Structures are given as C-alpha cells and as structure tokens.
C-alpha cells in the first residue's frame, strides 16, 4: 500500500486557482467510487425498496386498526389511524377496563438512558485504553488484545448464568448501574479494537511537534489525537448503539420493573394481551426505530470510513 496515495490524482495536485468542483472531482475520481448514472439509481431503488419492504410493512401496520392489520387480502390502502401510537403510552389492559398508563414512556427513557450512557462510557474507557495500547505498548499487548477480541465472541449463554447469580447476590439486578455496567462491557472490545487501529494510523510527528511546543500529554490527546479519529468514534458509537438498543436476553433477565427496556416490554406486550396487537407492536417498534435511524443517518459518512479502518488494518 506504499505507493498509493489515494487522495492524489494522477497528474498534478489541484491548485488553488481551480474551482472547487474540479478539485472535488480530482479527489473523488482517484478512489474506487466511480460514477454511474441514473440507470443504476433505478435498479438500486427497486432493490432497496424490495429489501426495505418488511420494514415498510411494519411502519404501515402501525397506522392500521386491528382489523385492518389482519385483513385478508392484505390492505395497502386503508384509513390511517394514530390510535396505536396513543395506545403505546396509555390503554386499557382488558376489554372495557380502565385506561391506564402503560409505562412505555419510562421504558423508552430507560432504553435511551441505558444505551446512551453505556455507549458513552464504552467510548470513553475504550478510547483511553486504545490510546494506551497504541501509544504505550505493554509487554503483553498482543495477549491482552487477543483476549479482548475473544471476549467479544463469547456466547451470551456462557456468561449469563454466573452474571445472573452475581447480580442477584450483589443486589445489582434491576438497577441501572448493573445493566449499564454490563452493556459498557459489551461495547468495550469493539471500541478498543476500533479506536486502536485508528490511533495506530495517526502520524506521531504532529504529536511530537505539539509536545515540543509545550503541550502536556493530556492536551495532546484531546486537541490533536481525538479530532483525527472522529470516524472511529462515530462507527463505534453507531454499532454500540445498535447493539445495546436492541439487546434482549440480558435485559430480559437482569432488568427490573423500573429499569425495563423497550425490547423486554415489547415481548411482554406480545404475550399479555388479547392475541397479538399487531398495530400496537408496530407502533412501538416504529417509535423505537427512529432514534437509531437518526443517529445512523447523521453519522453516515463517518460510518463507512470507520468500518474500513476498523477492519482492514487488523
């Protein structure tokens, strides 16, 4: 990979006199993403829509009444209703019974809070650790890193029982602290591997220059290293978020009534009520999907770069 400077076009470097469009074209045309026209757009749109269809159907179902959802033949056109969304937060648990607060507002908050905090913690602790592994290699570095990688491969089943017992014994079961600590540990291996490969990529010259200019190690880390690895942070955050957001097994066994997350609550909704209230379930999932999509879309450009770096340079 030594003679490939992907950003330099074959020929001359883009001069400042050149209009921006040309410079962008130079930069872009030197890498692998060539241009294709509207033909590909049409093809890709068809494929994407087909692939997206099951998700689309879920969102559509969220707006249907119970009868419409079960209609045969399936209804593409119907009168939409927002009733399901309202019922997410308060409804009658039995026919004719009183309308109660379902507590879903709490569950959504729990999911947000637990996922958010654990991802941030994993990023913080993991990035520091990655920086340590990268810049100050210890003797057992490779062993540590391999161990960290293998922990990611653990089937949840193997650790679930002792952790379950551990939580019960220490009283962590059902607390925020317990589940957040656990999720942080879930995200740590990925965060460490990802951020370490990013840190390995940075040229030490800039840091040395800053140190000579008198910056302390802390300043070097925050002002110089960190801004360059944003893509890694973004990718780690997104994948970590997706992982903890949708996590089911551990949440099922380890969260209490107060700290229940949405996936667990969702599974209870399936079991509890009269049949499965598909519209309701769809509404829950649609609402639940929105934060993830928003975060992924916002970090999209960084995400692809992050996936590249995190995996090619192993």
């Amino acid at each position, binding site marked *: *990979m030594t003679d490939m400077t992907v950003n330099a076009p074959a020929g001359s470097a883009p001069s400042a006199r050149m209009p921006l469009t040309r410079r962008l074209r130079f930069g*872009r045309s*030197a*890498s*692998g993403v*060539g241009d294709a026209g509207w033909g590909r*757009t049409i093809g*890709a*749109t068809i494929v994407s*829509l087909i*692939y*997206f269809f*099951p998700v689309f*159907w879920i969102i559509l179902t969220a707006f249907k009444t119970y009868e419409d959802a*079960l209609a*045969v*033949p399936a209804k593409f056109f119907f009168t939409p209703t927002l009733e399901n969304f309202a019922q997410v937060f308060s409804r009658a648990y039995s026919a004719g019974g009183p309308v109660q607060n379902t507590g879903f507002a709490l569950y959504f908050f729990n999911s947000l809070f637990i996922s958010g905090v654990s991802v941030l913690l994993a990023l913080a*602790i993991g990035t*520091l*650790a990655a920086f340590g*592994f990268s810049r*100050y290699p*210890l003797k057992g570095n490779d062993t540590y890193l391999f161990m960290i990688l293998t922990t990611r*491969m*653990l*089937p949840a*089943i*193997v*650790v*679930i*029982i*002792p*952790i379950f*017992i551990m939580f019960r014994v*220490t009283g962590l079961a059902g607390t925020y602290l317990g589940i957040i*600590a*656990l999720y*942080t*540990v879930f995200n*740590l291996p990925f965060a460490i591997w990802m951020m370490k490969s990013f840190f390995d990529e940075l040229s030490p010259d800039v840091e040395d220059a800053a140190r000579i200019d008198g910056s302390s*190690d802390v300043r070097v880390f925050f002002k110089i290293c960190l801004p360059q690895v944003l893509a890694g942070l973004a990718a780690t955050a997104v994948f970590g978020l997706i992982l903890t*957001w*949708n996590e*089911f097994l551990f949440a099922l066994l380890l969260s209490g009534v107060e700290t229940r997350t949405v*996936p667990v609550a*969702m*599974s209870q909704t*399936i079991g509890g009520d009269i049949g*499965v209230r598909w519209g309701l*379930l*769809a509404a829950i*999932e649609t609402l*639940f*999907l929105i934060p*993830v999509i928003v975060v*992924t879309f916002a970090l*999209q450009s960084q995400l692809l770069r992050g*996936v*590249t770096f995190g*995996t090619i340079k192993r």
Partner: protein
Amino acid sequence: MTTTTDIPQTAPLLQRLIALRWDNWQGALIVFVIGTALAIASLPPQVSFWASSATAALFAVTLIANAWGKYVGGLLVTPALALLFLMNVFPLLWSFGLSFFSYKANRAHAPTWVGLENYAKVLSDPDVWDRLHNTIILVIMTVSLQMVVGFLLALLFSKQFPLRRYLLILVLTPMMLSFVAVGAFFRYYYDPTFGLLSQAVRIFTGRPFILMNTVWGSRIGIVFADAWMWSPFVMLLVLAGLVSVPKYLYEAAAIDRVSGWRQFWSITFPYIRGLMLLALLFRTIEAFKLFDLVFLLTNGGPGTATETIALRVYRIAFENNKTSESTALAYILLFTVIVLTNLYLYFANRRAKEVPAS
C-alpha cells in the same frame, strides 16, 4: 508494605511471590486463584462470591499499584481491563469452576464436587448432538445466504449515483430493528391465515401456505429472517473493500484491454478477500450463538427441530434449573467457538501474508 524499591528480579521465585508489597500482583493472582477455589468448594455461593471478589479486588489493586507512574499505558488501560475482567473473565472463570460441581440455582444447598460428570452427561446426551446438528445446519444456511446477498448488495452500491445515500440507509434499517420486532413480525408474515407470504402464495396455488410447521420450513423461515437482518452488515464490509480500490488500477486495466471478469478476479477480489473472510468470521460466530431470533420466532419448534445449542443451554438453566449442567454445555459451546475462531484467524493471517494487497 513498600514500593520504593523494585523486587530484584534475581531473587528466588518463591520469595518474589510471597513478598508483602502493594505491587506484587503475581502474588495476589495466586491468592485469588487458590482463594476462589477454596471458597467455591466450601462456602455457599453467596458467601463464596464475596470472598472471591475480595481476592479479585486485591488483585486489581496490586495491578494498579504496579502500573502507577511506571506505565502510563498501564494506567490508561486499567479501567477497561478491570471492567472486562470483572464482568467477563471473572464470571467466566467462576462458571467454569461451577461446571465441575453439581449445583442448582433454586436449591439452597452448597454445590457438591462432581468432577467431569456434568461434561460426561452433556456429551453423551443424544439431545445435545441433535441440537448441535440443528445449529450447524442453521449456521451454514444463514451465513451462506448472508455472504451472497451482502456481496451482491455491495456490488450494487459500489459506485456513486444519485440518491445513493438515502437508499443505503433504507438497506441498513433491517440491522437496526430489535430482535423482538423481527421475531414477532416475521411470525406475522409467515402466518398461514393473514401472513403476507401465505397470501402471496395463495395467488398462485389458491390454498394457504403454512411455512412454519415443517422442520425445513421453519429452518428456512429462521434463516430468511436472520439473513435479511444481517446481510447489510456483510454489505458494509465488502463495500468498504470495493471502495478502497484505486481507480487508476481500473483505468490501467481498461487500457490493457482486460475483460471485466478478469478485472474482477485480478484486481477487485484481492482487495475484498480479507474483508469477506472477516465478515464470514463474525457472522459465523454470531450464527453459532443464535438465540434471540429462534426464541421469538419458533421457540425451538416445531418440537425441537430448530432448537439451537444456545437455546438448549437457556432451557436447561432456566426451565429445568440444572444450572451446572447448563454451564458445562455452555462451555462446550464456548470452546467450539474459540476453536473455530482460531482456525479462521490462522488461515486468514496466512492468506494475508501471501497477498499484500490489503
């Protein structure tokens, strides 16, 4: 206890180990291992847990003392390692120890030593081999499908075109759904009466289509849902490889009048080979651990046709309460995964050394 001078490395090993110093982490490690073993054997779980934790905490303290000042790297790394140790390694070792005992979580008595009996019981249980068989079939089916679909999707998105950004998000959404939703809704899609699949088939055959009541039907149902969810992951990895090929290589190939097929094999493939292997590795490991989707979609059914090993472990542990047996089985699963992983890594590294393209 002192920290002012290092223990001279020339001192005899035993003397080093038992030196009463804050940074004698080797000694603390020995205390931890022995202490934990003794505690598990002689104390009820609740108490042995605390005893073991105390020795673990001592170990952690000595590590930190060892690292302070001497190794900045050590300091940075300690919180992560400590957390991982606490939540992963420690429970792992503890449950490993537990697998040699007979213990049931819902009984109050202390565990009794049974040696390898649990493992023997598990390995000779024909049900276990049957579940393993199920798991392997599912793994092969879903991983193959994911690799193919993911690869094709990556090809589709490998060039810049209008709307690419938005279409990419559409394709990534299946990954973002919660297992509960996917499990429930695919059950809905597969339902013979009002499911979309049955309705579509009914247009052609006039009769409702029941997918999930046959062994192979339910397997296909699970595989389809799982592959649908995770093909985008494979796509991302392969796409990253495709995008990294320098454009001038294709230009040179065009000028060299090289056919498209040969271009793909000689230029593109070496770049994506490493990533595809990685995708294969990750997805296989995840597939072996298949639990959530199966639990929600079929609950192991019909009968036990789709019960995976992970599901079985769960059943033994929480429904039959044979806690230590389940840990034995879980460990067998773990070792299988580790062996597979190491095999993959070995071959992947060998290939990586041969072809320096990526």
